[in-house]
């Protein structure tokens, strides 16, 4: 049979295109993920080029390291217990009972998750440090010589971390509660069970997988947190694995400091992977698939005589754990000099003026952070579209791998990602180095935040039945046009929320930036952190307050614009 030449070549060109495309995708994955993490692994298991397990044994042989490991687990366990308790109770009250002011609570209760954790830690210092307002009030009331409460050390870390993480539980439990088939509970009532009995026998057990899943997420989040234990733990020498790794990286005098930090990272990753493994195992039991999908009109439980007390309980919770630290930050931010009583005559706006116009690093940091946040969220969203599309619609080899590679950093703490980036890029490659530039921060951000848009975009793709674009093709559109006209508009919500999910945390990122920044490459997070270290409390308060305002305002705007829950995970 005769085959025209152009057809033959067409085939070859298509093959070439496909090969190049595949190569490009895996090159990107290699630069972002594979190379840095393999460097971490290599450095952790070698010294001066020769393989060894000495790093690991040295790490495990040192008491201070084991103490840090113990601290990490100790803190995580208590954070998980507190966050799960608070999240479940609040979610149940707001979702299923006739509490007052529910619409207000629904919005306010997720605020702690929107505020960057190191800002929260700083705000809590204003309340509970030896000169904090709570302590002062207590000392005044009870005529105490010393401050009764302490924010530094394990209790402070646990409290602030639990407040930061309970919204994760709150959000996922609320979703599960909204979707549970109301007939489950009604059937138990018909069977003769009273209200409390129904909760005990049906609601709680049916919710158990959702609660377990949320608990694991809180646990893993807690073990990988850096900002809170750095600000509240390091000053008192209460170290967890992340802060310990951070200190190792910084201690250039120590021999093999990078190798030891890498080895310790393995330990931390191991805990995270273990957590995810447990979660996978726990949620695999299909017996618990009770989510019906449609949100049916579940019954609202009448609290009766407890209605007012329960509402007051939630209000007190909000006042103490959400409002108080913010108010404390406001007061400090407008006080003329540290230690002055909060009196009208002692108030000023000078701190804002000073921090915005007299500290050059602040504007530079704002510029850097905005640049990074915009570029990184745009790049991650574009990459997610390409990756998700490739994984779903093409047949290139290894497409299934993409998702695994991109998801890996989910179990890897920011500190470890930062270390991997240092190890990967510290030496010039082909005479070209990105170390000590803004580009290494950018690559690190991309690696860390890639998972967010990847999830929303993949989820959007999954919702689109193939028949939708096939119908467009039947109607005469080319495959490319069908994608443009049908698929892209349908995944738009996923794209927008993915972009925002990266933009917000990138804007105030601390963990990676603190490891990777260099002179003139400071980010907002780094600047706030360094200012707290220098003891510039008034100025830091002013800046922290501005950040809180911007973050909350942006969330509010996005909420308004999208009219859907895009602002949170």
């Amino acid at each position: 049979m005769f085959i025209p030449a152009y057809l033959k070549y067409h085939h070859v060109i298509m093959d070439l295109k496909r090969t190049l495309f595949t190569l490009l995708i895996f090159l990107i994955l290699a630069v972002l993920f594979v190379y840095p993490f393999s460097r971490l692994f290599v450095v952790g298991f070698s010294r001066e080029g020769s393989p060894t397990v000495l790093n690991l044994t040295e790490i495990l042989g040192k008491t201070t390291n084991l103490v840090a490991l113990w601290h990490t687990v100790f803190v995580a366990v208590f954070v998980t217990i507190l966050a799960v308790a608070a999240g479940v109770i609040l979610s149940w009250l707001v979702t299923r009972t006739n509490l007052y002011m529910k619409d207000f609570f629904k919005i306010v209760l997720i605020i702690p998750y929107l505020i960057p954790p190191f800002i929260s830690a700083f705000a809590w210092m204003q309340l509970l440090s030896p000169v904090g307002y709570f302590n002062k009030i207590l000392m005044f009331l009870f005529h105490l010589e010393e401050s009764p409460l302490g924010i530094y050390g394990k209790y402070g870390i646990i409290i602030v971390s639990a407040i930061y993480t309970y919204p994760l539980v709150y959000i996922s439990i609320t979703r599960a509660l909204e979707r549970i088939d109301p007939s489950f509970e009604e059937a138990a009532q018909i069977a003769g069970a009273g209200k409390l009995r129904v909760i005990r026998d049906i609601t709680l057990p049916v919710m158990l997988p959702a609660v377990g899943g949320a608990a694991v997420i809180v646990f893993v989040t807690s073990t990988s947190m850096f900002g809170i234990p750095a600000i509240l733990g390091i000053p008192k020498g209460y170290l967890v694995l992340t802060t310990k790794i951070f200190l190792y990286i910084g201690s250039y005098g120590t021999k093999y400091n990078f190798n030891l930090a890498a080895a310790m990272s393995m330990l931390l990753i191991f805990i995270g992977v273990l957590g995810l493994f447990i979660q996978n195992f726990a949620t695999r039991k299909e017996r618990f698939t009770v989510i019906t999908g449609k949100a049916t009109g579940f019954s609202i439980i009448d609290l009766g005589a407890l209605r007012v007390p329960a509402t007051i309980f939630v209000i007190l919770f909000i006042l103490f754990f959400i409002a108080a630290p913010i108010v404390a930050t406001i007061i400090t931010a407008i006080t003329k000099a540290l230690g002055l009583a909060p009196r009208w005559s002692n108030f000023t706006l000078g701190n804002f003026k000073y921090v915005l116009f007299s500290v050059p690093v602040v504007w530079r940091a704002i510029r850097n952070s905005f640049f990074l946040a915009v570029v990184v969220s745009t790049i991650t969203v574009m990459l997610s579209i390409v990756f998700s599309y490739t994984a779903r619609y093409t047949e290139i080899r290894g497409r299934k791998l993409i998702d695994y590679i991109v998801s890996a950093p989910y179990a890897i703490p920011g500190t470890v990602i930062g270390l991997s980036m240092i190890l990967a890029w510290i030496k010039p490659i082909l005479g070209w180095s990105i170390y000590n530039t803004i580009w290494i921060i950018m690559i690190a951000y991309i690696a860390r935040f890639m998972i967010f848009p990847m999830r929303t975009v993949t989820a959007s793709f999954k919702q689109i039945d193939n028949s939708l674009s096939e119908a467009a093709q039947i109607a005469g559109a080319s495959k490319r046009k069908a994608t443009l006209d049908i698929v892209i508009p349908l995944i738009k919500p996923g794209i927008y929320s993915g972009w925002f999910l990266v933009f917000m945390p990138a804007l105030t990122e601390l963990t990676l930036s603190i490891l990777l920044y260099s002179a003139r490459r400071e980010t907002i997070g780094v600047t706030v952190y360094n200012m707290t270290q220098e003891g510039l409390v008034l100025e830091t308060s002013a800046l922290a307050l501005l950040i809180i305002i911007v973050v909350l305002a942006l969330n509010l705007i996005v909420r308004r614009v999208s009219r859907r829950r895009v602002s949170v995970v």
Partner: protein
Amino acid sequence: MAGVVVQDVTKMFGQTVAVQDFSVEIKDGEFFTLLGPSGCGKTTLLRCIAGFAHVTKGKIFIGDRLVSSEDQRGFIPPEKRNLGMVFQTYAVWPHMNVFRNIAYPLKVKRFPERELRERVNIILHLVKLDKLEGRYPNELSGGQQQRVALGRALIMNPDVLLLDEPLSNLDAKLREEMRFELKELQNRIDVTIVYVTHDQSEAMAMSDRIVVMEQGRVHQIGTPSEIYKKPKNQFVASFIGKSNFLRAALLDVKDGILRLKIGSSGIIEVKWRGHMTGEEVILMVRQHNVEIFKKKRENTLPARVKLSTYLGDQFIYEIAVDRDTIRAQVHEEHHYSEGDEVYVRLRNPILFQ
């Protein structure tokens, strides 16, 4: 066992009326069906009887006990009404196996272990789940899950068994089987059943009596045959059975024989005992009561075949009669083609004003 009395019940959700001035007396041991299109208030009424919804007005008695009224203080919560209920989604608890699901009502009442096991075994046998007691819901088919729900509803020997569209989530074949099974089950265990459905054939097949509802109001209460043969109004006639409606002009009445003019196509005589006044009447005829002839006969109307559909055991013809189109369901071997000019006779018509 007990009857249910619903007395002038009105249920409002905000400004929306879900059930309006509804009264019915369900007899002890009766299979009573609430039938109507979705949104007609039948499920709301069932939930009022169950105690999941409070009545806005009126009273509900189970047996001779007042369980719901406007006065909230006398309200008896669902768990104290001694009812059984099968939900549309079955609501078989996913974290309990078959045995524990069925045993739960006994557990709540603190039955001793031995008696509990005995009674569960009897029920397991009754609903044909003997060998599956250790299984979890996700290991059961839809039909099996439904039997679990049924067993759980029956184990306390409830006064009344409430069934909320229990067959709607089953596939067609199983649905048909379960109809007979449910009916047979009731004969064996003597329980009052209140059944909610939108499926008229389900209602016809099982019920002792049916109430046809629409927009929260009663259209008709009666036995299946009463409702089928003597529908009170057009809604009931259209909801039950396959019906045709024709507009007709009433010419005159003589000795219980009405002469009707159907458009310009002809005049027919109809035997009718009811009272008819005015000039316009609506004539209803069931699809299987439409006879088709090739030639003109006595009391027939000229018509034209528009469409014929073959269904294996019968034909369905769409036939134009004057300005109206009716359907005829015929078993004859004789086949008419589209466009054929024919004559139709309307047997056993029912007239509405």
